[in-house]
């Protein structure tokens, strides 16, 4: 029991920390590649300076994404050995393929990009940043198809006391994986867009490097606007997929207790921290939950009361994570549409710029909340319907896990502080002067 709690906390800490860096890698790699492409095609030196400036921030972030990813792969073995032995046939192969197909490409060509400015042809150099962007996004697909398999296992048979692969294509092309991937990377692109907009806003407020940061802002705005709008529509598909595959997660997301037709969504809900039901639920929108889940207002949505307590996920966390994510998602739409309207005269709207600067952390919160919903809402299952979390943990001594957990928290806390301090420092410093960039 003790090992279970400690291992869960450790994995939560390690994944949360990892995902502080991953989304920016996924999105900013593409933005930097676009900037460099603009320089390559137009010859406009400002775009080269943009690629270098944002590239520098990208690299500070990239390093931590890589090193924290390594620990995750190994933690399946150290802390979740029963799980690893049970599902390695499927889950392990996805991780191994990710490494050979994507991780090598990403790690090798990032170095080519960093060290290759003077060493290789501009064309090859441009190709290397696109390869990094492509590889990191492809890497996300493999990792997410592995996660999707835990959420909704397909293409397997239980044989020899474990889950064995029976249909590889089903595993890597299942609807759950595709939808989860699109949702995750779109969230990452929004984060990258807000990151660039926020830092640009800082300099625009100070009226420095106005042309440089107006261009950066507008590029990021276009990116963030498209994906913020897309995410709202797409998020709806995600909800429907969860309804179809994970009814307890759906019920916990909305803290929905009673099985009913025309199930409402309450505008304001406070779930009880322990026990059944909600403390407060007011302002129902009739049929909205049925609509969200099954696209028809009369559909019956099963409530948590109809599931055994041991089969329910922790309701409060799942619920709070979902609401936070959705509220922020809509806020991103509002902020980017407003930005689009005033995009030509950004410096005349200092209030908006100040909001955008302060908004930098929000997509981080939304991204983490999304994962919290996905993972906490999956409980008590480690692999949905197949293996409970409690059955997957390693038979190791709790003191070992306690020590490593404390080490993780201290160590990651320090590293995170250093990384964000460095990013802030370089972000404030601004780009190198135009003359030195050539």
């Amino acid at each position, binding site marked *: 029991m003790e090992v279970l709690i400690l291992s869960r906390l450790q994995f939560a800490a390690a994944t949360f920390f990892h995902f502080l860096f991953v989304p920016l890698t996924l999105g900013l790699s593409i933005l930097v590649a676009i900037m460099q492409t603009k320089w390559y095609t137009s010859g406009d030196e400002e775009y080269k300076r943009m690629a270098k400036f944002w590239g520098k921030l990208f*690299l*500070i972030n990239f*390093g931590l994404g*890589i*090193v924290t990813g*390594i*620990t995750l*792969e*190994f933690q*399946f*073995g*150290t*802390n979740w*050995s*029963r799980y*690893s*032995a049970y*599902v*390695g*046939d499927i889950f*392990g*192969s996805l*991780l*191994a*393929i*990710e*490494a*050979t*197909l994507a*991780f*090598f*490409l990403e*790690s*090798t*060509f990032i*170095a*080519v990009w*960093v*060290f*290759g400015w*003077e*060493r290789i042809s501009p064309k090859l150099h441009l190709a290397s940043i696109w390869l990094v962007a492509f590889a990191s996004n492809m890497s996300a697909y493999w990792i997410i198809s592995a996660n999707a398999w835990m959420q909704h296992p397909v293409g397997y048979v239980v*044989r020899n006391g*474990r889950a*064995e*692969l029976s249909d*590889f294509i089903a595993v890597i092309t299942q609807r759950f994986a595709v939808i989860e991937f699109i949702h995750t990377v779109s969230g990452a692109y929004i984060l990258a867009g807000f990151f660039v907009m926020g830092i640009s806003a800082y300099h625009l407020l100070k009226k420095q490097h106005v042309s440089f940061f107006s261009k950066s802002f507008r590029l990021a705005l276009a990116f963030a606007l498209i994906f913020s709008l897309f995410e709202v529509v797409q998020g709806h598909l995600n909800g429907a997929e969860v309804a179809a595959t994970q009814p307890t997660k759906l019920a916990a997301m909305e803290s929905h207790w009673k099985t009913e037709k025309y199930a409402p969504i309450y505008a304001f809900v406070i779930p009880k921290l322990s026990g059944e039901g909600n403390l407060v639920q007011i302002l129902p929108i009739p049929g909205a939950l049925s609509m969200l889940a099954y696209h028809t207002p009369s559909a019956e949505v099963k409530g948590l009361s109809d599931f055994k307590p041991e089969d329910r996920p922790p309701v409060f966390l799942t619920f709070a994570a979902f609401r936070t994510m959705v509220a922020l998602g809509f806020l991103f739409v509002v902020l980017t549409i407003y930005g689009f309207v005033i995009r030509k005269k950004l410096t005349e709207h200092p209030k908006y710029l100040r909001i955008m600067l302060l908004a930098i952390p929000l997509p981080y919160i939304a991204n983490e909340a999304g994962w919290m919903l996905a993972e906490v809402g999956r409980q008590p299952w480690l692999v949905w319907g197949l293996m409970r979390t409690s059955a997957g943990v*390693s*038979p*190791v*001594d709790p003191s070992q*896990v306690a020590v*490593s957990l404390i*080490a993780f928290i201290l*160590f990651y806390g320090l*590293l995170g502080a*250093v990384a964000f301090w*460095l990013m802030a*420092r*370089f972000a404030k410093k601004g780009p190198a002067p135009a003359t030195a960039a050539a």
Partner: protein
Amino acid sequence: MLETIWFVLWGLLWAIYFMLDGFDLGAGTLLPFIAKDEQEKRLVYKSMGPFWDGNEVWLITAGGVTFAAFPTAYAVMFSSLYSALMLVLFALIIRGVALEYRNKVEGHGWRDGWDILLFVGSAAPALLFGVAFANIFQGIPIDTEGVYRGTLFTLLNPYGLLGGLLFLCLFCYHGAVWLAIKSFGELKERAIIFAKVLWVPLLILAVAFLVASWFATNLYANYLAIPVLWIVPAIAVVGLLATRWFLEQGALWNTWFASSAVAVGATLFGVVGLFPNLLPSSLDPKASLTIYNAASSPLTLKIMLGVALIMVPVVIAYQIWVYHTFRHEVTAEELVNGEGY
């Protein structure tokens, strides 16, 4: 048959990992001893710059392949070596961050701090990988349930420590040769002297390890049964002698290729001796994990083999291209205003 192919690939992946990351772990370990001033320290960092990240992915792949091809072995091995592996992971994190952040801020405190962390983060994995593999070679106390019946200190037995020292010394030698190739001026000359000096303990440790393996492990059984396999340790031995000879000739790349052969030969010496075991149990032979009782299903092994046969050569090809592109000595001008992490 599929299991055997995967066993060979598994061993090769670890061997390539040690050959490649070995030199940058070694160079990081040597940093406080070999670099006398700020310019030389930068030179050490730059010499690893374009390579270390790609090298480390071989570790991810070796780990991933252990997971995919032999999940039960992955599960038992990694949970048994819990504390040792956590130490390796923390060390590798520190080291990666040191490589990337050290030159981001001017200031003695900042740089000196990262230099120490680079040293610790390089030396610890070098030592611990050796300890871990030596323990795998001789077997660890796991029961038939796959539960480890020992502590971190169980691993620090004489044979384990000998393995650790051998790896540490080998990587330092390998790293010194790499620094000799990539650096210039006094650092280059010093790196050559370091390599010459390090070769002596390396020889002693290698011989000691080969002898100790006779008494502490079962590794030689396969060699006695199939004599043609002696070719594998012979690669390590020939490499060890050749590298010293090339070093004397001043043929630095050949020196490095020969020490690469030592890293590959030494790893495969153990792996071939281990076959068909992946993780022998020192408590009960029935508890040993072998390629037969720990492997994935034939379907997974086949799919993975397809991926590996296509992608690994591609990876090797573009990594060779990268090594070729950045093969030159680091220049003084690059140290001042060159690109980098």
